[in-house]
């Protein structure tokens, strides 16, 4: 998947706390399901499943190395997702600033 737009699948993939933790760990460096499961209170099998979900939405990429897949984060895809979140936050910050200015102008007019 090379979509420029972050779609709903990406957000539902990131929505899971264990998968967010995996992304955090992968930001520190490439890893396998085995090494990742050693740092989390979940089984290697569970980690492998979560990694498959992240791989499907291109947030990580797995490469077969020997008997295991080695995963690395897709920085561009993660950046797109984070950027979109930041855009929504900025939109609300702008709205709240307008609410503040409007309410304060009304308050001043009343005084």
């Amino acid at each position, binding site marked *: 998947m090379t979509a420029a737009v972050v779609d709903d699948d990406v957000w539902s993939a990131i929505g899971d706390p264990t998968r967010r933790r995996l992304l955090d760990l992968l930001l520190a460096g490439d890893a396998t399901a085995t090494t990742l499961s050693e740092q989390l209170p979940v089984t290697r099998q569970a980690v492998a499943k979560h990694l498959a979900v992240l791989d499907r939405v291109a947030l990580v990429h797995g490469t077969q190395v020997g008997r295991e897949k080695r995963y690395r984060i897709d920085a561009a895809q993660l950046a797109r997702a984070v950027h979109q979140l930041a855009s929504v936050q900025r939109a609300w910050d702008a709205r*709240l600033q307008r609410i503040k200015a*409007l309410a304060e102008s009304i308050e001043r007019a009343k005084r």
Partner: protein
Amino acid sequence: MELGTIEREVFVDATPDVVFDVVSNPEHVRRWWPDEAHYDVRAGATGTIVFGKPGTGETTVGFTVVEVAPPHRFVFRWTQPPGEPAVEGNSLLVTFELTAARGGTLLRMTETGFREMGWEAALLEQQYNDHVSGWNFYLPRLEAYAAQVGTLR
């Protein structure tokens, strides 16, 4: 970072009553957010908000009032297709919470529902205001409005 929810907070130097009116009354809401807002400030009331001027490829989305508890809480759902009931999965839930503080109001906004319906919906306003840059568009409107409010009182 919680990616399914957005939380923002701002201190407003105005009483909770005034702030509540600004965040809930459609006459005020269309001055800080959409171009048009049509709904009754009553729990369960449904209506619409419109982004963009009529005839310029505007977008109309549903707006449903969930809770009205002046001057403490105003809760609504938006982004559902107009005429469709607002439920989890087709709309975003916005909660305004107001607390009297330091002679003014602490206004807290929470928006949830992104995990269920994606983030594109929340970018609506931005998409339709791409050609204008924020304050360049809103400030003149706001100043005119503030002056008008001043004359009326």
